[in-house]
């Protein structure tokens, strides 16, 4: 019973992390049809930069801010410098993101090496808290879960209650119509891309603190983002939350109860969703 509850709790916190990474991915994909396969690299790069910033200043919060801001700037640069020039050419954009991820992964290896880095959390987030049934649980992981929920609600409010959010949603549904009604779509694209990339960098620092940062983590979070978006449906933040929850739980339950077949569960969920709803659980048919 205790193992089961612990597994579920770990599943929730992993899902929280996946949601943070994948929500940016799904927004960018839904709005611009740009499958950013460098999203995992942005996660890892944000984590490394956040680590260095935290190391220099001694403040974990500066690290978090650095992770978010540096990747938001990188995203802005990518959108304005590259993707804007090849709008509507989905395949070419995707190929470019692959090229970027190859170069980024190699450069990160050159700069930060193959070591594993571990953040130092602020004291009040360190240690375990006593909970009924599961006994002790790390405070940080609960804080991570809380952060993801707060960000999820904030994103939902941003998309559903603000003008820019309304434009983004309109763009996901019909980009041409949005453009025709006089909206500066380039600005919307830039905002979305910066937000999505920034969330990846933010998740890098926050996730790197919960687990660790090392080469190869980029692939792991890219896979998670891909599956979450395929399962949840593109452009839907709610879908990303549902997808992240399913995948996070499947992964931890798989690891706990059948360690050598863990990935199969993730895969089966994806196949099942594709068989029943090819557009994803919350996606709309194209």
């Amino acid at each position, binding site marked *: 019973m205790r193992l089961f509850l612990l597994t579920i709790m770990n599943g929730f916190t992993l899902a929280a992390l996946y949601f943070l990474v994948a929500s940016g991915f799904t927004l960018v994909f839904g709005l611009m049809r740009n499958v950013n396969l460098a999203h995992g690299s942005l996660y890892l790069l944000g984590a490394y930069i956040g680590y260095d910033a935290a190391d220099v200043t001694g403040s974990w919060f500066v690290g978090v801010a650095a992770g978010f801001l540096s990747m938001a700037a990188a995203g802005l640069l990518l959108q304005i410098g590259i993707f804007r020039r090849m709008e509507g050419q989905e395949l070419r954009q995707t190929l470019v993101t692959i090229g970027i991820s190859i170069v980024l992964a190699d450069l990160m290896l050159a700069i930060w090496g193959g070591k594993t880095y571990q953040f130092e959390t602020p004291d009040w987030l360190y240690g375990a808290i006593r909970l009924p049934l599961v006994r002790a649980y790390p405070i940080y992981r609960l804080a991570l879960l809380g952060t993801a929920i707060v960000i999820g609600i904030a994103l939902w409010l941003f998309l559903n209650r603000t003008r820019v959010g309304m434009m983004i949603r309109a763009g996901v549904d019909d980009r041409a119509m949005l453009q025709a009604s006089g909206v500066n779509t380039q600005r919307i694209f830039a905002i979305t891309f910066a937000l999505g990339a920034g969330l990846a960098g933010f998740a890098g620092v926050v996730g790197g603190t919960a687990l660790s940062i090392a080469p190869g983590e980029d692939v792991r979070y890219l896979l998670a983002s891909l599956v979450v978006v395929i399962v949840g449906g593109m452009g839907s933040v709610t879908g990303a939350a549902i997808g992240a929850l399913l995948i996070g739980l499947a992964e931890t339950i798989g690891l706990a109860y059948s360690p050598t077949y863990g990935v199969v569960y993730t895969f089966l969920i*994806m196949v099942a969703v*594709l068989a029943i709803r090819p557009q994803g659980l919350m996606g709309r048919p194209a």
Partner: protein
Amino acid sequence: MTAAAATPTPSLALRLGLTPRHLVTAAALIAYPLLASPFWTVQIGAQILFLGVIALSLMFLAGYGGMVSLSQMTVAGCAGYMIAVIGVNSAHLGLDWPWWAAIPLAIAIAVILALLIGVISVRTGGIYTIMITLAIGVAFFYFTRQNYAIFNGHSGFAGLEPPVLLGINWRDPLPFYYLSLAVAVLSYAAVLYVSRSTFGIALQAIRDNPRRMNALGFHVNLHRVAAHGFAGFIAALGGILYVWLNGRVSPGTIDIGPVINILVIAVLGGMRHPIGPFIGALLFVLLRNFAIDLIDPERFNTLIGLTFLIIVLISPDGLLGLWEKARGWARSGGAAAGWRQKQG
């Protein structure tokens, strides 16, 4: 053309559509290992040929079917793994079946995997295909790494080699090169043949307009799945050569790096014609082996990534596209007449 007019009955070569260009290439490919050192024969020559074969399977799917599948290395790796599991490996962890049973069975299993990937991925189209096949490829990588019952986890299998047949050790540089050459030429010819068959024409029509083909009564998804199966067969051939040369197969064989490399090779060469992947493999293998002279060998990935980016940005059709452009330019004698050339 002129040769046909001179001789009363066209020769076999002409009936097969062979031109002097093909014969020169064939002669060069056959003579190559007689002039080159064993390193150049195997590590460069054979490597180019079978990487080209695996990329050729992607070219077939993407060029004729409009489906950019990132799981071709996964299918190739599956065939390699099956050779190890069904056949003989150094740890004797497999079934130890003889080669004549292991090879067909390994290919068959890889084709089944390719068909399954097809069934899963054709439910959605376009850009989703890349995402789904990449997810499948990465998931398969993690699966082989954590599964010890079938795939022997992290370490994989070693001691894989081609059988000694007809008194020839096919592992030796010369026989292995010719074996790879034969597989490459046959795969190339098969792709060309299929692309001109009824099935291939239908596939290309589906790529251009699936709705219309559906309305005409073609089973669109069945064609796409069959294309995955055929491409899987070719990838499996390349995959078996791959593990024979390396002598081992492990999760690293199908890690995201190799998976992406196949796409890089196909895109570098160009996906309009089956020769593209081989040109891409030539550039890729040469860059990988001689990056040491250009930059720090550790930074090969940066070099290949930048090369890839430049090609994608300046020539969407790869080196083949550049070649076509250059030829059109040279023939027309400048940019001014360039557009007329295109019309004609």
